[in-house]
């Protein structure tokens, strides 16, 4: 099948152009919960504005330069009886022009860039909420010094109040990434990296570790739940009250069995069930409110009974290499533990956010 060169070239050019159009459409947050193109936080918005301006410059340069290239290919392709090649060697004026024009475009990109760099490098005014973020292989720990709360995988923040993240790692390099709110920052050992953002609206925002950190880097996710101030205060109040595991109702024999298992099997050696003043030095994520969380296994599995059972049956099956070993639990043990962990619920998602994943 012979496609004329003209059409072939046009086909080749069309694909990326179409892509560019799709890029603009691609940012619908409902389809892409982790997108960078639908910012809901001030930091992400500043970054997005800057980014979009570079996209327009790039699109313009792309159309112009590719267009000239394609035009040249069509116009100057060899034809029988066509003109001979013009034997010119260069043109100093053109060299100057096509040095200065790109340089000028870059100045137009550079100025807002430097402004944004310095603007986002400063802590916000006012009274930011300090949250310590600690990366582990392969989950995120969050501590709220202001409230003496420790939790994991799900970070609650108030809408409209600046959040001051102080981030580090407990082991290897990770990168805390929350695309719709605050872009990303790597975390290191022994010193804090800082990131500030203010959530602009309520929602559940997905994020993932963005620095290769070992075998389960691919399943180290988290959620940032921005709640209206009243909802956030309610969450804080309930988590602050969780200074001991939630007691189990006397009649719930299955959960009582689970409670006994939790205390006598390896669980309590790695996990705490209280958010306030948990025992120091535990290697596993804090499980306070595990019954009410959206996800388990570091943000990678929906928190259903079936998934909880699957995890307990053998964590290595779902997340090979994770530090939690296969405990060799029987099916009865697993049922009991699931029932128990379900009772460990102190705060649930605000109703306004319940629809979101």
């Amino acid at each position, binding site marked *: 099948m012979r496609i004329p060169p003209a059409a072939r070239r046009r086909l080749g050019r069309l694909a990326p152009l179409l892509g560019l159009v799709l890029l603009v459409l691609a940012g619908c947050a409902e389809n892409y919960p982790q997108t960078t193109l639908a910012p809901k936080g001030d930091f992400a918005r500043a970054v997005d504005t800057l980014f979009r301006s570079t996209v327009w410059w790039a699109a313009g340069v792309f159309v112009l330069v590719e267009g000239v290239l394609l035009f040249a290919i069509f116009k100057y392709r060899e034809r029988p009886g066509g003109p001979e*090649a013009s034997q010119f060697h260069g043109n100093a004026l053109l060299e100057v022009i096509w040095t200065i024009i790109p340089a000028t475009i*870059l100045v137009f990109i550079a100025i807002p860039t430097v402004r944004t760099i310095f603007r986002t490098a400063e802590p916000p005014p006012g009274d930011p909420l300090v949250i310590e973020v600690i990366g582990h292989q392969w989950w995120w720990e969050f501590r709220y010094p202001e409230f003496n709360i420790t939790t994991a995988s799900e970070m609650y923040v108030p809408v409209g109040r600046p959040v001051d993240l102080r981030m580090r790692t407990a082991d290897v390099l990770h990168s805390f990434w929350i695309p719709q709110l605050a872009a990303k920052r790597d975390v290191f050992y022994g010193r804090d990296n800082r990131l500030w953002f203010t959530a602009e609206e309520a929602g559940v925002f997905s994020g993932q570790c963005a620095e290769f950190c070992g075998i389960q880097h691919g399943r180290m996710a988290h959620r940032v739940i921005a709640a209206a101030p009243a909802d956030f205060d309610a969450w804080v109040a309930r988590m602050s009250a969780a200074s001991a595991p939630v007691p189990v109702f006397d009649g719930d024999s299955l959960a009582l069995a689970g409670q006994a298992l939790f205390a006598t099997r390896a669980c309590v050696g790695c996990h705490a069930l209280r958010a306030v003043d948990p025992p120091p030095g535990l290697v596993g994520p804090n499980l306070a409110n595990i019954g009410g969380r959206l996800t388990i296994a570091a943000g990678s599995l929906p928190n259903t009974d079936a998934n909880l059972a699957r995890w307990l049956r053998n964590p290595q099956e779902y997340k090979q290499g994770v530090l939690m070993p296969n405990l060799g639990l029987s099916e009865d043990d697993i049922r009991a533990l699931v029932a128990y962990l379900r009772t460990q619920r102190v705060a649930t998602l605000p109703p306004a956010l319940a629809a979101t994943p």
Partner: protein
Amino acid sequence: MATTAVEQPHPHSGAHARATGVWSWITTVDHKRIGILYGVTAFFFFLLGGLEALLMRWQLGAPDNTFVSPDVYNQLFTMHGTTMIFLGVMPLSAMFFNFMIPLQIGARDVAFPRLNAFSYWVFLVGGLLLNSSFLLNAAPNAGWFGYANLTSKQFSPGLNVDFWVIGLQILGVASLAAAVNFFVTIVNLRCHGMRMMRMPMFVWMSLITQVLLLLAFPVITVALILLMVDRFFGTSFFIPAGGGDPVLWQHLFWIFGHPEVYILILPAFGIISEILPVFSRKPLFGYAAMVFSGALIAFLGFGVWSHHMFATGMGPVADTVFGLATMLIAIPTGVKIFNWIGTVWGGSLRLKTPMYFALGFIAMFIIGGLSGIMHSVPPADLQQTDTYFVVAHFHYVLFGGSVLALLGGAYYWFPKMFGRVLGEGLGKLHFWLTFIGMNLTFFPMHFLGLNGMPRRVYTYPEGLGFELWNRIETAGSLVLGASFLVFIYNIIRSRHHIAPADPWEGGTLEWSIPSPPQEFNFPALPTVYSRDPLWEQRRTHGAAPEPTRVSGQGIHLPNPSFWPIVTALGIAVFFVGFLLGVNLWVILAGGGITALGIFSWAFEPAG
């Protein structure tokens, strides 16, 4: 310039019957044979790297896929990157350095033929060692840039990272030796009349590449030494608990790593600058601007390394400096693109396969360059870095750039190297499969990255919207795989089509001798009076007749030698000693063999 030395008849020269047989290849010091060795070996490794990519793409073709385990996936992506860079693109470029540079500058061989052979054998040994790790299910698995402190003994207790460190160290020796060789060759062995500003552009870009190799590789050598002693002896260069700083690894790595990407692309720039003029039937536009922009890109390339580290929190001043420096590199790069278009403009374009690849290169490299500019904006990069957006960017510049150029160079120079012409129909099919395949595979990665897919993940969940693009990319990768099958078939079929000395009406010296060249290259070393000496000749004297093969009597050629491979094996044994738990006997044995090799080499009878 030195006075002309008279070439005396020499007992070893006579009618140069081409030696054949395995021993003649093992002891060869002929740059053309060494070039072919590099090419065949590198092509094999390139296909291996491609297979690794196909396996990765298959795993990513569906969410929560279990085609490969996470551990295997991490080995695959690490080896894919390491293989493509160090065992694919670099040695494929070395194939062209080896074969074409002496021909293009009118020389009989490189400055140090035995060192040349040595470089190849060390490369082979390094590549084999690196890949032998697969046999132990211990292939490197910490990424091709091996960030500390994941690579420490504590967090990577197996042999994987040891293989990576040792393998790369060995490959570094090969690169450094070759860089010294080609640097001296280009500076010192040009024929009469070939001033620097008359050299073919491929030679210029290669010269700049050798300088980059000489200056960048020592830095990664040191980084690998520090990592090695951390792992083998317990120092704390990159261990926070001992006072070390993992960020030091990043700095050292990227001070090497950024010039490395220019090492990967400059030879490609050179190849394109050879193909475009020939197939446009006019000289390269802006020769001087091309030389200076190439040099400027290389120079500036040493000043931008921390643009790989924008997410590490270096502070606004460092971010600004490296962001602006990175933007600056766009200017000479743009100059090159415009000069290439200027070369095409006003020409009489013969749209043969090499030209398809060259034009495709320009189109794809523009896209890669533009995403690079997006990366140069530090705040924006905080979203893009470590996502599939970066993966898209570097595949556009490395595949759409380096690989397309290498393929174009393959079609362009295949006749000269093998005396056969590759088929045009199959060549164009190869091109379109490649072009469509690469765009299907890599363009959607821009979207995935911006929509939140990080890189180096062995899977992704449902519900994030990643499925459709990943499926398309997997399909695209299969098209790319098919394109290489077409290429191989084209190569096999070419054995029926004999090539003349000058199938393309080229302007540079390699087209003045038979295809393939005789062992001594030129019966008499040429003198040139301009760039594109063959076009000059055509203008003044008309087209030259097909050159005949002559006896070569009286031409002195270096003797074959077996000490380069011995020395290479000595180095391999030395490093393997470290891999075997720092076995002192093996290390000393390796050192001994290396010393024996070097001394025998140095005192080999002159020939």
